[in-house]
């Protein structure tokens, strides 16, 4: 009968089995992550060798040179890393609270629209010293409202915030498309002076303010999440809503407040796109970083230092890839960068498995990392 076959089968130990690890030492974690990054780089390199017919040395040197060749490429590398980082920092507190905010993209656009509004109506009429603070505040409020709406529906009607924040992205995209037509002066550069509402340079660097804002955001978010009462409330509500109720923490207040902060930081990123980078709005603003940032925040387990490192790695892959694309414009286009970022994320997510489990082969031999 069935029983018998099962018995003969089960005489032997399983060929491969997985053993959950109890805890992971810091050293092991560093080694596994480093191995994953090297493997990802190796696969990226091999991929380019196949599609471009270059040697692997050429590929890597092109990627590095595309990043550090001159001050323009270096600045572009840091700028992209910082923008991704700011959005990831914005999303982190919401995730920590188990509020799955995948509406980063929409919140960036909402912030961008709110900032561009001032540009359109008062761009040539007010001095920058007045208009930039107005842009910053309204961008934060705009992004915040974009996150606030799903939050209110979540606490009042228990709607699913993942779907809701996702859908809010599309509303923002359509609104931007509409405004691009009605606000054509911003679209058609030149109607408004390029200087109007532009972030001034800092330390002689056009992106200076972006770097400063990213650094401040990372540090403040670290302090906010780990050292403040608000951060503590976020952890309690995120992990144990019943415990929060029992401790007298108002779930309503914490979710509303945190969602707003999360959206406001994303909105601030939208302001930076309008004021310091694009000087216009478009629905592709931010290049999908609202989604990439979700993975950055998760991979880093909301640790700001890791978020910084991962953002820089992704930015490196992006700048390196576009360098290779620019050398092979006949065969490649810019979407190659996304393929490579995908390869990188695949390895980074995959290594989590090896951190949490070890593989044991029949006969008790253990597979290494």
């Amino acid at each position, binding site marked *: 009968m*069935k*029983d018998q076959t*099962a*018995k003969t089968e*089960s*005489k*032997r*130990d*399983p060929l491969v*089995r997985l053993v*959950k*690890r*109890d*805890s992971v030492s810091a050293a092991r974690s560093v080694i596994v992550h480093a191995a994953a990054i090297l493997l990802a780089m190796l696969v990226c390199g091999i991929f380019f060798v196949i599609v471009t017919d270059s040697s692997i040395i050429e590929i890597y040197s092109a990627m590095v040179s595309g990043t550090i060749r001159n001050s323009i490429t270096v600045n572009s590398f840091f700028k992209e890393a910082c923008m991704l980082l700011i959005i990831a920092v914005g999303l982190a507190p919401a995730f920590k609270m188990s509020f799955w905010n995948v509406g980063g993209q929409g919140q960036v656009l909402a912030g961008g629209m709110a900032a561009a509004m001032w540009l359109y109506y008062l761009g040539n009429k007010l001095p920058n010293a007045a208009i930039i603070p107005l842009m910053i505040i309204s961008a934060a409020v705009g992004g915040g409202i974009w996150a606030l709406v799903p939050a209110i529906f979540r606490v009042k009607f228990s709607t699913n915030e993942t779907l809701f924040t996702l859908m809010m992205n599309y509303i923002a995209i359509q609104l931007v498309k509409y405004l691009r037509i009605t606000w054509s002066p911003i679209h058609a550069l030149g109607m408004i002076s390029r200087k109007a509402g532009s972030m001034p340079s800092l330390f002689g660097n056009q992106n200076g303010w972006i770097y400063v804002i990213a650094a401040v955001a990372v540090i403040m978010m670290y302090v906010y999440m780990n*050292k*403040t*009462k608000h*951060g*503590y*409330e976020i*952890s*309690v509500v995120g*992990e*144990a809503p*019943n*415990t929060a*109720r*029992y*401790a*007298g923490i108002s779930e309503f207040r914490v979710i509303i407040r945190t969602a707003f902060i999360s959206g406001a930081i994303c909105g601030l990123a939208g302001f930076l796109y309008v004021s310091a980078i694009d000087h216009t709005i478009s629905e592709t603003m931010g290049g999908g970083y609202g989604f990439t940032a979700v993975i950055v925040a998760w991979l880093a387990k909301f640790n700001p230092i890791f978020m910084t490192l991962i953002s820089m790695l992704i930015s490196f892959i992006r700048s390196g890839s576009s360098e290779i694309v620019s050398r092979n414009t006949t065969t490649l286009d810019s979407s190659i960068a996304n393929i490579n970022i995908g390869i990188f994320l695949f390895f980074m997510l995959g290594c989590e498995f090896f951190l949490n489990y070890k593989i044991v082969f029949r006969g008790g031999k253990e597979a290494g990392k």
Partner: protein
Amino acid sequence: MKDNNCDMEARTEAASAPNGCAVRLTGITKRFGSVTANSNITMDVRRGEVLALLGENGSGKTTLMNMLSGIYYPDEGTIEINGEAASIRSPKDAFDLGIGMIHQHFKLVDVFTAAENIVLGLPGKSSLNMRAVRERILEICKKYGFDVDPDRKVYNMSVSEKQTLEIVKVLYRGADILILDEPTAVLTPQETERLFDVIRNMRADGKSIIIITHKLHEVMEISDRVAILRRGEYITTLETKDADEKTLAEAMVGEKLSLNIDRPEPHGLVKRLEVKGLSCVDPEGVPTLTDISFSAYGGEILGVAGISGCGQRELLESIAGLESTLPGSSVLYYPDDGEPEELIGKSPREIRSLGVALSFVPEDRLGMGLVGSMGMTDNMMLKSYNSGAPVFLHKKDPSALAGSVRDDLGVVTPSLSTPVRRLSGGNVQKVLVGREIAEAPTVLMTAYAVRGLDINTSYAIYKLLNEQKEKGVAVIYVGEDIDVLLELCDRILILCGGVVSGIVDAASATKEEIGLYMTKAGGPSPAPSEKGDDVC
């Protein structure tokens, strides 16, 4: 009965002998990282016996059974089932070998019926003959004396019905070896009795039953033999008829014990709480508490008895401000000086600042009261984090408190920042109770404070409660073990169907008397219960 010994010679015939070994474990070792959960365990289970597996929290009982049921795979050692070496790689392998485990946390799909849950995951043809399934279920029920309605949805079932369903599920799959992990922890005395009847029927049918439990009197009542584990090691197996509760407890703990609970004479009683006309309804409008009135005094322990789900939770939660009450309800708090204060309408935080502490221990210890991913220090400040200067957290006091709770209550933890979810159940509970007591409350409410705890820890908690009582704290103790209630408390309030059916003096009351109040006899007429499946 002499030669049903599972020694070496008997082993070869074991498969054919009617009283042979159903399970034989040899040198089983299981490690999790640096922790050795089971170390070189060698023991056996006979056919047609009830074996109680006894051990303190963290002694490795559940781990050992999880290896039998295919959830873990042993690092070392061999398992023989019915005399044949077996490698149990998955729960499916375990089922194929006739091993079924009923876990503490039920694994059922809420929106499915009983019958659907039973066939879930079974191989079969593309069309499913539910009528045949139903008949088979009813046949099993009839054989062993279960009461299961195959068409009832799981979300409509009480805890004991769900447990019954789990047992029927494994029997349906042809299990001959059943493992029950603390099955009585969630049952009332009556339900426990019914479960034991079923277990006896299964034993008579030749099935082997392994039951994990902490309750010594249940071990004495139901088991044929008792296997004892201590800190991951196998100590011994005793014939139940040769053992008594005291020897078992000592074998389990490894030292001499006294199994008496002190009850210091209450003195200097002061009225602390006066509950008048307290009523609650659940979200569907069904009354959960009806016109509750009683007083609690500083310097005494007021026990609350009752079949589970008769309003104990609602009672404590309404006093703590977590449950909304009907108009006309009143809970007066009498401070040392000044006028009595009305607690109804105050927020949990305001009530707590008056000194009314609720140490509520629900089925899921981590679900309410603690945050699993946080260490002891962060959990200590759960209620006090908002005090002190604004904006930033102040971790100095909570850290000192965590240290003293760890030392005073003997919490075993690698460090104060180790996530409490990694601690064993007993230690988690000590952290919770320790924090509540540290607040120096004037009213301390505990619910099921010792549920699932081992003997040593339970007694440590009784001692803590007595210390609070002697300090003049009004202690309200919701318990499920009537023997303990009678020994520990000064007065016992009995709830039945959301109504106070009696308040008795614990020193003179008997178990039978309380049992009667629990089932309404002698109490006032019961509240109309629309919930047909309600235990009351």
